[in-house]
């Protein structure tokens, strides 16, 4: 096994991992602020892929640009979904019953989106044909896919943008306050319900953008979400529930582990490494890489 092959696997893992990271940030934000696990997150990603595809094939918009253009409309879509559906199962009554209702609601939403897309667009897979999807930068014997490189850079930039927003703007701080202590935040004049809508909108927008970036090199079909939602969950838990930097790190780690697993295991077990790493972290560091131990009630 030449060292260059190891480097090849590491590079590939990180490039893919950045996309997982961006998806996971959206999910982590929603969970962190709302305590809602959004099972439909993967399907919003799938919709992001399709919109990017239609922008590319119908209007000649480069998918990398398309992935950014879809952020505002998906943000509005996320806020709308929150306003119409999620407010009914958050912020009132028994938390356990609410959690059950949230699970059922988001799972139902996932089914509706997937099946509606199959009916309207047909299950036939599509792919965006771009020159850079099948080209690579070369660094000695190591090949670095151009599409994934661009997607990596944009994922990192978007993640930095979110981080900046959360830590350097009043609105971002209000979001975090609503996450830390909803009751106290309400007393300080922060509308927790509005913050929930904002978080859901941003979370959906991020995963749609990740879908757009993914579409530069990954085929698109209505059921593509199931391949990624599990990885998102693992990344979020790995990084520590509710931690944005943790989710990003978790995503990178998953991409890396998934790629490196194939050095020692056959291809059929490509995701075994991911779950082994997941179990190890849960066992050794149950709060996740960057999570905090929850305060005792």
């Amino acid at each position, binding site marked *: 096994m030449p060292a260059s*092959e190891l480097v*090849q*696997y590491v590079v*590939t893992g990180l490039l*893919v991992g950045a996309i997982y990271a961006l998806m996971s940030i959206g999910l982590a934000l929603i969970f962190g602020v709302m305590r809602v696990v959004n099972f439909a997150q993967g399907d919003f990603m799938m919709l992001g892929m399709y919109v990017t595809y239609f922008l590319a094939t119908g209007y000649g918009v480069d998918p990398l640009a398309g992935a950014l253009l879809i952020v505002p409309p998906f943000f509005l879509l996320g806020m709308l979904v929150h306003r119409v559906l999620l407010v009914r199962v958050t912020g009132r009554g028994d938390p356990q019953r609410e959690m059950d209702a949230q699970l059922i609601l988001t799972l139902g939403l996932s089914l509706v989106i997937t099946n509606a897309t199959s009916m309207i667009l047909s*299950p*036939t*897979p*599509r*792919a965006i*044909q771009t020159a850079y*999807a*099948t*080209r*690579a930068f070369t660094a000695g014997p190591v*090949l670095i*896919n151009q599409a994934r490189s661009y997607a990596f850079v944009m994922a990192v930039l978007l993640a930095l943008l979110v981080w900046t927003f959360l830590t350097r703007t009043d609105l971002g701080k209000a979001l975090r306050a609503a996450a830390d202590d909803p009751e106290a935040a309400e007393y300080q004049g922060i509308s927790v319900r509005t913050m929930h809508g904002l978080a859901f909108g941003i979370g959906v927008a991020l995963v749609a953008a990740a879908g757009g970036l993914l579409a530069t*090199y*990954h*085929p*698109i*079909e209505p059921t*593509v979400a199931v*391949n990624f939602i599990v990885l998102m969950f693992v990344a979020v838990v790995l990084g520590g529930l509710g931690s944005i930097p943790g989710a990003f790190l978790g995503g990178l780690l998953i991409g890396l582990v*998934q*790629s490196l697993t*194939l050095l020692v295991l*056959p*291809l*059929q077990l*490509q*995701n075994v490494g991911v779950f082994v790493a997941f179990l190890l972290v849960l066992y050794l560091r149950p709060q996740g890489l960057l999570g905090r131990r929850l305060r005792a009630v």
Partner: protein
Amino acid sequence: MIVLRNGRGTLLSVVAVGLALVLAGLALSPAAALAAEELKIALVVPLSGRWARQGQLKKMGAEMAIEEINAQGGIRALGGARIVLREADAGDTVEKAVSAAQRVLGREKISAGIGAWLSSFTLGVTEVAERLQVPWFTLSYADSITERGFKYTFQTSPVGGLQAAQALDLFLSLAKAHRTEVKKAAIVGDNTAASVFFFKPLREKLLREKGIELVVDEIWTPPLADGTPVVQKIRSAQPDVMFFSATALPDSIQVLQKMKEFGVRLPIMGNGVWLLMPETVQAVGKDLIEGVMSSVGAHPLKGQEPLVERFKKRTGEPFMVQDSLMAYVHVWIIKEAAELAKSTDPRAIRDAVGRLDLTSGPATALVPGRIRYDERGRRVGATTIIVQWQGGEPFTVAPAEFAMRKPLWPSAR
């Protein structure tokens, strides 16, 4: 008194109308009795569910043949009897396929049947046809279809057990013609039944017999998360050929994209019609699919360009694949059998099929241009052919005497 009068009048009216209807019926009967007999063919294929596309293509082929036959006078030995298609939806399970066959064969007199596409469906449907003594024609590959001692089953494709060996021989002859020595091979694909059926004989016996070393053997459960490790292994091992069967299109796209990116150029040999569909080139893109080959039981051959053009014009499809071609041929075979039998009786047609030995005409549009079935119901001389994508369309490239195009061969690494 008034009521009585009205009642009596109504009764008379009813009687009058009744008599009129009876007379009308009598008038119609003689005309109906003079109509020519019809030869009904059953088509049991998936028309809904996940394989609906395949079923629709078969229906298109059958309908085209029927239209052509009826337009030139129908079945002459039966006074110009017209052929009528009776389709039934096999759906997406064996149970539905069997139910469909029972319904269509039980409802009216069917002279012959075509279908059911998937081998597992065909195994079930032919049980029904055998019991009801209706000759049944299929393109399904499974050996077991014609290993049960059935008299009414006719398998027109080369059987699965022979296809991998035939494909390998044909491929090696292509390689030799291009001065390529095949010493190392890669097997790349998923673990679905279609792929296993192709890979297993190659892996276990055929490659070894030819002295070919298997240097890459990458199998995954769909979906493939990332094509990189697969292609990285190919890049390192440098095989002379890749046997490829990624039946989930997204997985195919990933592997082919990655191969282009990594600059890995070598012959790619697949198996099955899934790799030759219009949807395949739409999804994968004609640049990526260029040069990819697939072995199948049938595909339009040299000299059949007019047939393909008629099909395209009639259906709007960009090209013709084995599903439509086989159904087209099956209808013509049934027509020739009916001419020989001088009857629409399914048993008489079955006996006529047993006597058929056609070497010309539309029914023989399959390699090697002969229609004859042995005592098991297998077509004599049926052999696998190789089809290759060129310019966004699949063309037969081997055997050479039937090739529509010369094969594209990847330049030396």
